[in-house]
C-alpha cells in the first residue's frame, strides 16, 4: 500500500499525478483512518503551499467520499457544537481538532465525517486565499501601500501636467480607454491563481484584447471601458460611474473603504489599489481633504469617472477586471508610478497594473483569474504561468509565480489576415444568463488537486487543444479553430466541470447545427459558465445572416426557458475587433468627458443655487449650454429627458401587482395585522423561537424505526400490493421558487434543467415524473402524481406538465393551484439585526466579510429609509409576492377540489407520498409504504442522519414528546447539535386519517364552505414564522441587487407538534432523503454516486 503522502511529495510526476481514488479503493476503514491521520500530521508542519493544500483536499475527499462508503450509515455520531462554532468563525484548525477528537471518542460516522470534510475543504480554500493575499501584497511595487499608515506619509503627488489650469477649460483631463479580453481556448480554468502557482507549465491561456459594439446600440466597435481623471476645485473625491448612474462625493477617508455602501465599490478599489489612497490608511480617521492636500494641493479634489459602454454584466469578457485595470493605469499614470502619461504602457508597467488589479479584486471582495486584465495588453497573446525563481516572493512556497508571463503574438506569428478572418467568422453574444461562477472555480481547484482520472486526463487534452489553436492561428485556419474550441467545450471542459454547460446553451448549439450544418464551425466557450458571454463560429460568407438569425433564436429560446433558468437580461449580439494597442491614455482639455457624464451631473448642479456652485462648475455649465446650442450633439434632448419627468410604467406595475394579489388569494386584513404585529414586536425572528424553558432532547431508542436496512419481505409485499391497487399518489411540493437555488432570481426551481441524465438535461420535475414512470413499470400501476404550485410556479409548471403528457401520451399528472399569497415587506431593523448579529452564521474571508458588513449597513439604511414593515413594491410584481409556506399545499388540495376529484376517479387511493421538489431520492418505495400502512399512523415522516450541511432543526423530544422542530424555532442553537436526525420532509399521509383531523371526510370534500372553515381552523393551531428571504432586483444591463425581504410562512413539519395527529418516524438512507438546496452541492452529489443512484430509479421516456 502506497502512502498518500507519496502522491504529494514524490518527485516522479507519474506518482504525483495518481488520483486518490486509485489508492484508497481497497483500503479498510482502519487503513483509511490511518492514512487520514498521517495526512493530517503532514499538512500541519509543511511550508509548501502545494503540499499543505493537496493534503487538505485529500483529507476532504476521504471524509466526503471514501469513508462514508465504508462506515454504516446507522453509526450514530454527533457534530460537536463547539467545533461548529469554530467552523463558523473560520477557526478551521480548531474545528478540525474538535471533530477529530469526537471521531476518536465515538468512532467514525457520517455525521462527523461530513463536518471534517467541510472543515478541511474550507481550510484548503482559506490557505489558498491567504497565500494569494500574501503574494499580491508582496509583489514588488505593491508593498509600500500597506506600510503607509498616516496621511502625512503619503508619498504620491499628481503630475504637474494635471495641475496646470487652462483659462478656458480649467484643469486638463487624463482619459484612459481600455478593451476587454476574450479567451480563445477557455483554458480549462487554468487561470485560477492556484493552478498558475502550482502547475505553471499547465497554466496557459490565449486571449485577445477586443473592442466591442452592441448590435443595435453602437455603430462601431470601440474600447468599451472609458475612464477619466481630473482635478476639481472642491476638496472631495468625486467618483462617477456613468453606466451605473451614480455620483458619490467622498468627504471622509473611511468612506473610501466602505465598498458596498454604494455602487462605486470598483472605483474605490481602484483608488486604493492604485495607491492614491493606500490600503494602509484603512481605519485612519481623517477627512478626505487632508488626504488629498498632499496629492493635489490645498482646496482641490479629484474626480474619477468610469463608463462601460453598455456591455452587460456576465459577458465573460472580464469587464470588471479590465475596468479596474484601466482605472488603476489611469491613476498610476497621473501619479508618476508608471513611465508614460500618454499612449501605451510598457510591459513592466502593464505587469504592475495587472498586479494592482488583482489587489483591487481582492479589496473589493471579488475574484478573477490571472488572465483577466488581458485587455490592458495589446492584441492576441499567450499568457502562461511562470516558474518562481530565487528572489520572487513565491520562491520556496509555490512552484509558480502569482503573475503570469505575457507573450504578445507578432504579425509574423498571427497574420493580420488571420485576425480579420477571425473577426469575420465569430459571432460574439451575451445569451442573457448571469450566474455565479464562484462554486465552479472552487470545483476546478479541488479537482486539479485530487487528480481524478478522467478529469486529469481532460486537463491534458485541454492543454493539447490550446497548442492546436496556436498552430491554427499561425496558419490562419479559422475553421479548425472553431472545431478545436467546440471539441474543447464538449470534451475536456465538460469532463472537468459538467455544470459549465446548460440546457439553454445546448439548445442554441443544436439549432446552429440544424440550421447551418457545415457552415457552423463550432461553439466557443468564453469562460466560467456558458449561457452569458459565448461565441459561435460560422463560415464568414454566412456570418452576417447567422448573426441576425442567432439573435432571433436566442430571444425565442430565452422566452421558452426563462421560467426555468435564471436570465438577467435579453440576449445581445456584439460586433468586435481585435485591439492591437492595449490600454491607451491621452491628456485632453478639461470637459472631454465620456458620453453620459453631463446628463448625469448637470441635473444635480441645476438643483443648486448657482451662487453656491464652484467657479469651475459654473464654467462647466456654460460649456454644457454651448454644447446644447450646437446641433452636433443630442445632449440637449438627453438633459431634458433627465430633468423633466416623463410618464413611467410604475403605475402599470402597481396595477398589475394589485391584480395579482387579488387573483392569488391575498388577504389584506391579515396582512395589515401582520404589519402591526411586526412593528409592535409581537411577530419577528425572535418571536419564532419556542420558549427558552423548552426542553429539547435527542430522540430515544424506539422513537424512530430504522428503515436503512432491508425491511421484512412481508412489509415490502404490503407496500407492493398497495401500489398495484392504486392506493398511493405522489405529491411534489413546488410552490416555492427556491430562493437559495438562484439567490432569489425568481425562476421555477422545479423546472430548472440542472443535470444531464440519459444524455439530456433534466429538471427536478422531469426526475420526479420519471421515478413515477418507473414505479408504474415495476408494479403495473403508475401512481398518480400531483404537483403543487404557487402564484409564480403554476403557469410554467402547468405548461411543462402538458408538454410531458403530450410526449408520453398519458395523463395521471395533476397540477394543484395555490390558494393564498403574501405580499413581501421591507424588514424591520430589529429582524435584520437579529438575523445578522444574533444568529450564528459563517464568517467570510477577511475582505469579503468587510464588504458584507458594509453591504449590511447599506441594507439597514435601505430598510430604514424605505420604511420598516412597509409593503415591498419596488420590484417586478411577481418578485413582490411570496408563497405562504408549504403547510398550505395539502390544504390547497382540499380547497381546490383536486383531492376530491382524485378520490372520485380513483376511490382506492388511500395514501399520499408528499416530498419537497429538491428531495430527488424520494420514490414510492414499497418497503416504506408497507411500514407506513402497518403503523396505522396518520403521518409517517422520513428522517435522515444529520450531516454538517443539514441545518434547520430536526427530530427531537420537545418537552418529552417526539416531534419535528424547525430551526427557526430552536431557542438554543446548541440543542440542534444534539439531534441525530434531520427532517427530509418526505411524509407518507393516510388520507382518511388526515381528513378526520381536519374534521372532514371523503364525502364532505364537496362542501367548499366546510372545507375552507376546516382549513382556517386547523391553520390557527400552527405557528406562523417570520422569515427573511433574498430577492433579486434586476436593472440596467444585467445588474442585480439582492434585498432581504420579510415574509411569513407556515411549515408542514409543525403538523407533528399536534397531539391528535399520530406520527411515526422512519430513518431512511441519506441518499433518499437529502435535498439539493444550493448549486454548490451539485458536484459532490454527482461524484458521491447520488445522481447515478437516482438515475437508476428513473424511466425517462424521451
Amino acid at each position, binding site marked *: 500500500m502506497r502512502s498518500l503522502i507519496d502522491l504529494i511529495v514524490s518527485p516522479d510526476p507519474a506518482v504525483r499525478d495518481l488520483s486518490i481514488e486509485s489508492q484508497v479503493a481497497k483500503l479498510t476503514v482502519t487503513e483509511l483512518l490511518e492514512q487520514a491521520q498521517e495526512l493530517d500530521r503532514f499538512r500541519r508542519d509543511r511550508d509548501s503551499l502545494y503540499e499543505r493544500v493537496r493534503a487538505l483536499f485529500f483529507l476532504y475527499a476521504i471524509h466526503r467520499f471514501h469513508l462514508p462508503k465504508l462506515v454504516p450509515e446507522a453509526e450514530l455520531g454527533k457534530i460537536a457544537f463547539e467545533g461548529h462554532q469554530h467552523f463558523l468563525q473560520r477557526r478551521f484548525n480548531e474545528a478540525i481538532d474538535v471533530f477529530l477528537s469526537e471521531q476518536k471518542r465515538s468512532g467514525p460516522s457520517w455525521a462527523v465525517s461530513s463536518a471534517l470534510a467541510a472543515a478541511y475543504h474550507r481550510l484548503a480554500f482559506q490557505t489558498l486565499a491567504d497565500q494569494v493575499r500574501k503574494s499580491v501584497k508582496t509583489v514588488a*511595487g505593491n508593498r*509600500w501601500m500597506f506600510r503607509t499608515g498616516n496621511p502625512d*506619509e503619503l*508619498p504620491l503627488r499628481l503630475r504637474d501636467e494635471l495641475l496646470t489650469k487652462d483659462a478656458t477649460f480649467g484643469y486638463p483631463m487624463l482619459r484612459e480607454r481600455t478593451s476587454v479580453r476574450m479567451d480563445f481556448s477557455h483554458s480549462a480554468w487554468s487561470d485560477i491563481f492556484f493552478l498558475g502557482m502550482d502547475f505553471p507549465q499547465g497554466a496557459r491561456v490565449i486571449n485577445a484584447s477586443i473592442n466591442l459594439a452592441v448590435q443595435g446600440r453602437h455603430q462601431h466597435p470601440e474600447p468599451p471601458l472609458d475612464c477619466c481623471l481630473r482635478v476639481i476645485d472642491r476638496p472631495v473625491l468625486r467618483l462617477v460611474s456613468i453606466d451605473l448612474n451614480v455620483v458619490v462625493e467622498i468627504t471622509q477617508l473611511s468612506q473610501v473603504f466602505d465598498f458596498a455602501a454604494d455602487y462605486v465599490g470598483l472605483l474605490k478599489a481602484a483608488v486604493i489599489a492604485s*495607491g492614491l489612497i493606500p490600503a494602509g490608511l484603512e481605519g485612519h480617521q481623517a477627512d478626505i481633504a487632508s488626504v488629498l492636500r498632499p496629492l493635489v494641493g490645498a482646496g482641490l479634489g479629484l474626480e474619477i469617472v468610469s463608463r462601460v459602454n453598455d456591455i452587460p454584466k456576465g459577458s465573460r469578457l472580464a469587464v470588471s477586471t479590465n475596468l479596474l485595470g484601466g482605472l488603476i493605469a489611469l491613476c498610476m499614470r497621473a501619479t508618476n*508610478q508608471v513611465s508614460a502619461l500618454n499612449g501605451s504602457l510598457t510591459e513592466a508597467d502593464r505587469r504592475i497594473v495587472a498586479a494592482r488589479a488583482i489587489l483591487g479584486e481582492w479589496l473589493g471582495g471579488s475574484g478573477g483569474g490571472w488572465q483577466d486584465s488581458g485587455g490592458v495588453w495589446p492584441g492576441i497573446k499567450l499568457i502562461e504561468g511562470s516558474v518562481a525563481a530565487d528572489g520572487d516572493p513565491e520562491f520556496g512556497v509555490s512552484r509558480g509565480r502569482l503573475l503570469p508571463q505575457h507573450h504578445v503574438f507578432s504579425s509574423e506569428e498571427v497574420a493580420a489576415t488571420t485576425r480579420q478572418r477571425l473577426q469575420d467568422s465569430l459571432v460574439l453574444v451575451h445569451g442573457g444568463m448571469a450566474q455565479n461562477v464562484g462554486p465552479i472555480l472552487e470545483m476546478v481547484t479541488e479537482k486539479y488537486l485530487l487528480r481524478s482520472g478522467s478529469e486529469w486526463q481532460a486537463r491534458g487534452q485541454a492543454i493539447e487543444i490550446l497548442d492546436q489553436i496556436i498552430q491554427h492561428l499561425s496558419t490562419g485556419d479559422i475553421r479548425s479553430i472553431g472545431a478545436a474550441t467546440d471539441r474543447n467545450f464538449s470534451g475536456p471542459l465538460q469532463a472537468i466541470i459538467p455544470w459549465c454547460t446548460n440546457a439553454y446553451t445546448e439548445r442554441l448549439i443544436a439549432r446552429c447545427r440544424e440550421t447551418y450544418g457545415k457552415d457552423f464551425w463550432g461553439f466557443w466557450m468564453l469562460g466560467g459558465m456558458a449561457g452569458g458571454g459565448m461565441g459561435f463560429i460560422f463560415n464568414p460568407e454566412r456570418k452576417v445572416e447567422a448573426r441576425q438569425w442567432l439573435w432571433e433564436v436566442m430571444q425565442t429560446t430565452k422566452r421558452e426557458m426563462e421560467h426555468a433558468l435564471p436570465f438577467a437580461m435579453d440576449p445581445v449580439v456584439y460586433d468586435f475587433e481585435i485591439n492591437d494597442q492595449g490600454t491607451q491614455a491621452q491628456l485632453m482639455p478639461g470637459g472631454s468627458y465620456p458620453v453620459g457624464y453631463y446628463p448625469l451631473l448637470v441635473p444635480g448642479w441645476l438643483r443648486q443655487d448657482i451662487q453656491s456652485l464652484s467657479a469651475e462648475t459654473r464654467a462647466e455649465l456654460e460649456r454644457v449650454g454651448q454644447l446644447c446650442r450646437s446641433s452636433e450633439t443630442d445632449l440637449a434632448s438627453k438633459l431634458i429627458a433627465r430633468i423633466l419627468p416623463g410618464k413611467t410604467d410604475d403605475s402599470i406595475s402597481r396595477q398589475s401587482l394589485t391584480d395579482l394579489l387579488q387573483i392569488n388569494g391575498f388577504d389584506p386584513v391579515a396582512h395589515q395585522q401582520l404589519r402591526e404585529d411586526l412593528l409592535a414586536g409581537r411577530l419577528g425572528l425572535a418571536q419564532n423561537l419556542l420558549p427558552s424553558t423548552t426542553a429539547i432532547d435527542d430522540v430515544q431508542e424506539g422513537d424512530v424505526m430504522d428503515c436503512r436496512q432491508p425491511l421484512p419481505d412481508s412489509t415490502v409485499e404490503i407496500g407492493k400490493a398497495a401500489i398495484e391497487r392504486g392506493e398511493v399518489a405522489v405529491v411534489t411540493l413546488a410552490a416555492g421558487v427556491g430562493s437559495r437555488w438562484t439567490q432569489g432570481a425568481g425562476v421555477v426551481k422545479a423546472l430548472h434543467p440542472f443535470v444531464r441524465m440519459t444524455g439530456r438535461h433534466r429538471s427536478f420535475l422531469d426526475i420526479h415524473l420519471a421515478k413515477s414512470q418507473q414505479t408504474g413499470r415495476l408494479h403495473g400501476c403508475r401512481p398518480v402524481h400531483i404537483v403543487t404550485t404557487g402564484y409564480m410556479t403554476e403557469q410554467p409548471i402547468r405548461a411543462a406538465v402538458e408538454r410531458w403528457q403530450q410526449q408520453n401520451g398519458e395523463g395521471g399528472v395533476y397540477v394543484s393551484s395555490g390558494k393564498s399569497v403574501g405580499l413581501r415587506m421591507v424588514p424591520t431593523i430589529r429582524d435584520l439585526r437579529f438575523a445578522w448579529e444574533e444568529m450564528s452564521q459563517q464568517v467570510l474571508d477577511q475582505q469579503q466579510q468587510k464588504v458584507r458588513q458594509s453591504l449590511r449597513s447599506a441594507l439597514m439604511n435601505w430598510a430604514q429609509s424605505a420604511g420598516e414593515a412597509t409593503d415591498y413594491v419596488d420590484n417586478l410584481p411577481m418578485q413582490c409576492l411570496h408563497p405562504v409556506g408549504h403547510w398550505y399545499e395539502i390544504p390547497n388540495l382540499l380547497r381546490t377540489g383536486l383531492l376530491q376529484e382524485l378520490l372520485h376517479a380513483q376511490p382506492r387511493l388511500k395514501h399520499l407520498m408528499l416530498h419537497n421538489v429538491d428531495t430527488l431520492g424520494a420514490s414510492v418505495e414499497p418497503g416504506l409504504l408497507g411500514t407506513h400502512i402497518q403503523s396505522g399512523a396518520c403521518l409517517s415522516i422520513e428522517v435522515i442522519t444529520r450531516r454538517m450541511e443539514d441545518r434547520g432543526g430536526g427530530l427531537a423530544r420537545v418537552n418529552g414528546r417526539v416531534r419535528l422542530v424547525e430551526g427557526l424555532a430552536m431557542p438554543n442553537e446548541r440543542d440542534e447539535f444534539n439531534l441525530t436526525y434531520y427532517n427530509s420532509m418526505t411524509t407518507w399521509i393516510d388520507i382518511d386519517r388526515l381528513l378526520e383531523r381536519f374534521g372532514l371526510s371523503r364525502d364532505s370534500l364537496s362542501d367548499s364552505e366546510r372545507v375552507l372553515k376546516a382549513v382556517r381552523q386547523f391553520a390557527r393551531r400552527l405557528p406562523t414564522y417570520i422569515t427573511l428571504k433574498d430577492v433579486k432586483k434586476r436593472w440596467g444591463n444585467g445588474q442585480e441587487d439582492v434585498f432581504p425581504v420579510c415574509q411569513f410562512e407556515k411549515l408542514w413539519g409543525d403538523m407533528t407538534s399536534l397531539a391528535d395527529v399520530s406520527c411515526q418516524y422512519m430513518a431512511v438512507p441519506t441518499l433518499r432523503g437529502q435535498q439539493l438546496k444550493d448549486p454548490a452541492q451539485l458536484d459532490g452529489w454527482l461524484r458521491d454516486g447520488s445522481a447515478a443512484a437516482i438515475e437508476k430509479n428513473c424511466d425517462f421516456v424521451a
Partner: protein
Amino acid sequence: MTISKAVITAAGKDQTHLPLQTVVDRTGRARSALELVLEEVVSAGIEDIAIVVAPGEKDRYLAAAGSFKSRLTFFVQNDPQGYGDAILRAQAFVGREMFLHLVGDHLYVSDHTQLSCASQLVAVAQREQCSISAIQPTHESKLRFFGAIGGTPVAHAEKLYEVTAIMEKPTPTQAEQALIVAGQRSGYYLCFFGMHVLTPTILDLLAEAKSAFAANLAGNPAGTLAGKPMSVNLSDSLRKLIQREKYLAFQIQGQRFNIGETYGLLIAQMALALSGPDRDRVLVELVELLARPK
C-alpha cells in the same frame, strides 16, 4: 588623486535665496546657510570653491559667504537648462580633476564624533579613487524630494555600495521594483545626500547630454520633447557613468536637511541646535512649547 576643488550649485529656480537665509549654528552663532555649506567643504580640506548662481546673485552670495569669500569663484547660469547644466558651467574651474559637489539648498549635520559629512565622503573617495555619491536611508514618503540608488553592498566595506540603478524622485512603486538594496529597513531607500565626489568623466557625460538636449530642442521648437529629457539632469549622466567606470555610493554618518522643503529650514535649525552645547536649553524650550495648549 587628491580632491582640492568643490562645486556648489545654487542657481535653481526657487532655490537662489535658500543659501542666503540665516540660521544659528551649533555654537549659537547666527550665520548664513551658505556659510555653513562652505564650512562643510573647507572642513574636508578643500580650498577652491566654485558656486554656480543665477544671474544677478553673485554679490548677495559674496556678502553671505562671510570669511570664505576669498576662496570663491562664481559661475553664472544664464539660460538655465537643468541641474546637470549648472555643474557643467564650472567645467573650466574643475579641469580634469576629481571634485566635490554639493547642492546649495541642503545643510549637513554630522553624527561622526570628529569628521564632517564632506570629510567622510572625501576620505572614502580618495581611498577608492572613483566617483562616489553620499547617500542616506530615506523613508519612502520623502522619495519625491531626492534621487535614489539601487545597488549591492561592497564586500568588506561598511556602508559602501556599488551603484546599479539610479532614479530621480521615484515613486515608491518604482523604487520597490528597481531600488531594493539588501540590508535596508523596509520602506527605506538609499537617497542622495546632496553631496558627491565626481570624476571629470561626469563632465564629459553632461556635455554629451547637453548637446543632445540642444539638438532635441532645435528639432522641436514648440518645446514638446515627447519621450526625451526635459532638461540636462545629473541623474541621467550618473546612470551612464555606471557603464563607463566604477561608481560607488557611501552612506554618510550624518544627516542632510533640504531647506527648500516646507519646514525644512526649521527642522535643519533644530538639528543644528540639538547637536551643539545648547542642546539642553533648546530641549527645555521645546518641551515648554509642547506643553502649551494647541
